[in-house]
């Protein structure tokens, strides 16, 4: 998978939040084979060093980091957060989230496009968390985005691919743009289904972090993503409404 000129052996991008412990997070990242993990910025009290401990753990894993602007509801908030993240994490990559609605955590596509334009002009490589809306996708590309990350379903919902038709249309519409399904994935089969549609990768977090055995689930996702991609590349057959015998009818004995 190639994103902004960087190649990654794995098509899985893993979030780092909500794990039972830092050790289990590290195990899960290693088991997943992910080459990219998402990180964030939050307020730090002066006496703690929680942020530095976390950052040190991530650096030891030797993976690329993708900072996010999670929780930002306005363009200004998202842009400021992105600039702060660039300085702290030393990367111009940003997973751009501008949240528009509290119940679904649906992106505010208008704010997203505006923030994406400001950030790409400032030298950021923007990976926007968007929907499968084709018009918004066009606008994001015009704003300078070179990767699009449509949702599968609302963040943390584990509902899988809510709009397969829309995701398929998006893939067909942008054959050359790296497309990552970000959010809503609950099961390895959801990830495999997205890969079978021809998506370039999957970004997920909760499905692994909240599994009974996060490292095992991380492995399961890695295998599902590989299987789904291989299936896509192998050229799946078209579905049809009626049965068609797979065993040849010619030469069948007359025993009836």
């Amino acid at each position, binding site marked *: 998978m190639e994103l902004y000129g960087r190649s990654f052996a794995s098509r899985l991008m893993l979030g780092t939040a909500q794990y039972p412990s830092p050790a289990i997070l590290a195990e899960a990242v290693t088991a997943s084979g992910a080459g990219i993990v998402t990180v*964030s910025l939050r307020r*730090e009290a002066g006496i703690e060093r929680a942020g530095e401990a976390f950052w040190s753990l991530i650096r030891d894993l030797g993976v690329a980091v993708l900072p996010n602007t999670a929780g930002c509801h306005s363009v200004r908030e998202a842009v400021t957060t992105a600039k702060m993240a660039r300085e702290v994490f030393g990367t111009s990559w940003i997973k751009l989230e501008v949240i528009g609605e509290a119940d679904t955590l649906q992106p505010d596509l208008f704010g997203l496009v505006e923030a994406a334009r400001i950030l790409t002009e400032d030298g950021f490589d923007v990976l926007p968390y968007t929907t499968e809306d084709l018009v918004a996708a066009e606008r994001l590309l015009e704003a300078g985005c070179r990767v699009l990350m449509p949702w599968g379903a609302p963040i943390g919902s584990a509902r899988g691919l809510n709009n397969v038709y829309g995701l398929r249309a998006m893939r067909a519409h942008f054959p050359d743009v790296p497309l990552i399904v970000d959010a809503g994935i609950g099961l390895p089969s959801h990830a495999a289904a997205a890969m079978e549609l021809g998506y370039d990768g999957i970004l997920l977090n909760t499905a692994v972090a909240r599994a009974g055995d996060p490292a095992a689930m991380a492995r399961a996702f890695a295998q599902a993503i590989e299987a789904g991609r291989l299936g896509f590349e192998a050229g799946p057959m078209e579905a049809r409404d009626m049965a068609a015998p797979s065993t040849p009818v010619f030469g069948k004995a007359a025993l009836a």
Partner: protein
Amino acid sequence: MRILLNGKAAEIEAATLAMALAELGYDDRLVATALNRDFVPADERAATILNEGDRIEVLSPMQGG
């Protein structure tokens, strides 16, 4: 002077953002700063004068999805 640090009121002697970070115990920490909702790069903190009622955000790396 009174400022708001990460949403909480604080009383500081410092005149600049860099001095405020030292006074508040952040001097050697890996943090990013914002003043009144605008990003202040690390190399501009020493020249950033603080005023009464300023809102300072001090952020550090955190888990994220």
